[in-house]
């Protein structure tokens, strides 16, 4: 009998000893090294080839390894020179001539010149290009307006467009327009995405699958060498685990903090950063059939939904109420006179009664997750409750994200009256042009899944796209926003504020409205 006691005690002793030993080993590692920033990312990157990827998660790394011809000025969504020193736009808006900065080399030692720029765009756009097979390039349609890229001389490159296209410059500032080293593409072929080479502030160090991507300071960076020695990007897909890593000191910078976890980071040991970005969360209303074919019912839905409660209660203040289709982050193109629809259930009931839509049955497509969708199920349920309070009968149908896109993108006709949706774009043109024009109905390859149609809006958007003067474009977009708000093809709900947490060892960090992560000025003690 005594044996068992010994065994148990022995077991306990061994276990405790083991735990303590292991604890001591790992305890020594809790402190991350100085001058090396450890970033908790949300997923493993797909590739480090800017032309081949689509996810913000990958862009966060790429923006530090590559430069584009142009970039967004710090803290804005306005374009400024980067690898190009200056540019000229022809009178008719179809020719863009860039003068390139001199003496810049790619990390692999090859020269950055006009030939390299031409190589980049031909690789993406020209199916006969010898390195087109290093794709596919899913976002190459950003540059589908380019008819030809021409090397004028070593420092001058000219793009000829098939028509005036105002968003061209800001598309060049988007990660898809980042310039890669042609020599590295030739050397590594389809493996380039794992052996990247650009001109950016950091050079590629190593990529350990599912563990980390390491980038190291580029001492010769043309815009000043970074303060950090290296940055380590760790993919931590589970938000709770990411939060725990931040609390335990395993990472220095955490992106996309879940709203419920924000309260963990109060106090001096952490800094919470917030930045509104070019994001809008809305409900597509089916304007072709059913109750929402009547503009009064669409407006009623806008009055009925308590957006303040959504952003403050459901999203814990991580978003702001949206007033119209254009996010305020596009400062120059945003109409500041626009007031969001107030929460006014009585007004909503009145409008519904006027339209004779009392008790209308609505089918509401809700997604379980997806990029930029925030907390779609909780938000969907809250919206359902608000709409039922003014007399609608709302039936929710929930789909997994990919399935959801497959249902919504081809159009809501015959399936649903409303659907959740969210977009993050880089130019005020993109979303309205792809999702509000008559020529963007799904059968014509656009995203206007609710079949909104207003010839005035169409004309304004077409005109804004071909105008090369920014003030003129701004005027057109502002006018468009007023009309669209009045027509209410969507319920305008929220503009998301991206957030991040840094530990007290990190300084000089700021989030960008573009949602990119720029680390060349960051210091870590």
């Amino acid at each position, binding site marked *: *009998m005594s044996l*068992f006691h010994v065994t*148990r005690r022995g*077991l306990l002793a061994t276990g405790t000893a083991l*735990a303590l*030993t*292991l*604890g001591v*080993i*790992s*305890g020594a*590692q*809790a402190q991350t*090294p100085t001058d*090396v920033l450890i970033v908790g990312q949300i*997923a*493993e990157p*797909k*590739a480090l080839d800017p032309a081949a990827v*689509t*996810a913000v998660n990958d862009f966060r790394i790429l923006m530090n390894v590559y430069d584009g011809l142009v970039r967004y000025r710090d803290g804005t969504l306005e374009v400024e020179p980067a690898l190009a020193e200056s540019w000229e736009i022809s009178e008719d808006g179809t020719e863009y001539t860039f003068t390139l900065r001199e003496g810049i080399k790619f990390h692999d030692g090859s020269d950055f010149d006009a030939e390299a720029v031409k190589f980049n765009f031909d690789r993406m756009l020209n199916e006969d290009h010898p390195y087109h097979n290093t*794709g*596919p390039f*899913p976002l190459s*349609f950003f540059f589908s307006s380019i008819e030809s890229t021409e090397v004028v001389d070593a420092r001058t490159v000219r793009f000829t467009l098939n028509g005036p296209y105002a968003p061209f410059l800001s598309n060049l500032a988007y990660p898809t327009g980042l310039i890669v080293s042609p020599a590295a593409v030739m050397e590594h072929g389809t493996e380039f*995405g*794992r052996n990247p080479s650009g001109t950016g502030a950091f050079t590629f160090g190593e990529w350990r*699958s*599912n*563990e*980390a991507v390491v980038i190291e300071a580029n001492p010769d960076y043309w815009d000043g060498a970074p303060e950090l020695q290296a940055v380590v990007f*760790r*993919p*931590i*897909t*589970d938000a*709770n*685990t990411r939060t*725990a*890593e931040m*609390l*335990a000191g*395993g990472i220095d910078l955490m992106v996309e903090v879940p709203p419920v976890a924000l309260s963990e980071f109060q106090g001096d040991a952490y800094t919470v950063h917030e930045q509104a970005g070019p994001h809008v969360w809305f409900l597509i209303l089916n304007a072709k059939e059913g109750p929402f074919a009547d503009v009064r019912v669409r407006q009623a839905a806008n009055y009925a939904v308590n957006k303040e409660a959504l952003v403050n209660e459901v999203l814990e203040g991580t978003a702001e109420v949206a007033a119209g289709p254009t996010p305020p982050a596009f400062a120059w193109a945003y109409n500041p006179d626009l007031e969001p629809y107030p929460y006014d259930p009585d007004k909503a009931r009145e409008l519904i009664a006027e339209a004779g839509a009392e008790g209308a049955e609505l089918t509401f497509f809700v997604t379980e997750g*997806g*990029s*930029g969708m925030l907390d779609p199920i909780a938000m969907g349920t809250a919206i359902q409750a608000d709409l039922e309070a003014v007399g609608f009968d709302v039936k929710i149908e929930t789909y*997994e*994200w*990919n*399935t959801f*896109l*497959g249902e919504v*993108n081809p159009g809501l006709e015959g399936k649903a009256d409303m659907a959740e*949706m969210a*977009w*993050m774009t880089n130019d005020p043109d993109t979303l309205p042009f*792809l999702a509000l024009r008559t020529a963007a109905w*799904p059968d014509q*390859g656009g*995203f206007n899944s609710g079949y909104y149609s207003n010839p005035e809006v169409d004309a304004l958007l077409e005109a804004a796209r071909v105008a090369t003067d920014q003030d003129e474009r701004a005027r057109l977009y502002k006018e468009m926003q007023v009309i669209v708000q009045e027509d209410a093809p969507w319920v305008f709900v929220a503009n998301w504020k991206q957030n991040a947490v840094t530990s007290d060892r990190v300084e000089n960090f700021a989030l960008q409205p573009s949602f990119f992560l720029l680390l060349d000025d960051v210091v870590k003690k």
Partner: protein
Amino acid sequence: MTGYILKRLLSAVPVLIGITIIVFLIMAMIPGDPATAILGSYATPGNVEKLNRDLGLDKPLVQQYVIWLGNMLTGDFGTSFALNRPVLDEVLERFNATLVLAGTAFVLCSFLGVIAGVISAANQYGAADKGITFVVLLGISIPSFFLGMMMILFFAVNLRWFPVSGMWPIYGDRTLGVLLSHLAMPATALAVVATGVIARLSRSAMLEVLRQDFIRTARAKGVHERGVIWRHALKAALVAIIPVLGIQAGFVLSGAVYIEIVFQWPGVGRMLVDAILKRDILLVQGGVVFVAACYVVFNIVVDVAQSLLDPRIKT
């Protein structure tokens, strides 16, 4: 004997072909395609069609299946869309990590479970039995992912004894000690439920044996109680316990999915979940076929081993 092994191996071929057909059909039938997953909000019908063509997904299903199977027979599992690297490299690397985690958990739960079961049985209705039964039932009732999260909160965030997640540290040498410090929490969390099940079943197996005549004989002839329990009774009970261990090995391997997500362990379960969400068809197919093939081989080995131990099975 050789004939029996050959027969078992041959019977595995239709099983494997069946698996390839099932996993291929499931991936073909679930809504959403890789192009939509890659393009996200930009998935216009036109863009989707072009990207599907670039990815080679516009061919008829039968043709896709034949190409996939043919390539696989030559050892080419294709390239993952979402990770842009060969499926086989990814699967092997990930499977390795899962084996380390599940293997450790299996060893833990086998030893602790059997020992706890034997102690319980030897002290039937005694304090030790009641205590162990209580702990064991608690262990069986707590979902492993919840236990994992609580362990992270307590041992990693508050006490800082162990690292929160991952298999290796970002910096420093890859020593066994470092691996063990990363392994301790996930392996324990994974082993808890299986330990409970094994302990309960070992206890009843032992109790049955302890009632038999040869135990009374052993005691009567003066064998020390320690010898009776551990040598005579346990040996006889193992016949009933070992099949349970075999079943639990399967549960530990599949339960690793949750643990791998909670602890960000770079294993094959987490890989498959990510791949399914991203509609990374080739990675899902390759991963499932590989894991299934391992199960089949494992089963054959167990069958053969059993037939060696017990000649009655070999018919």
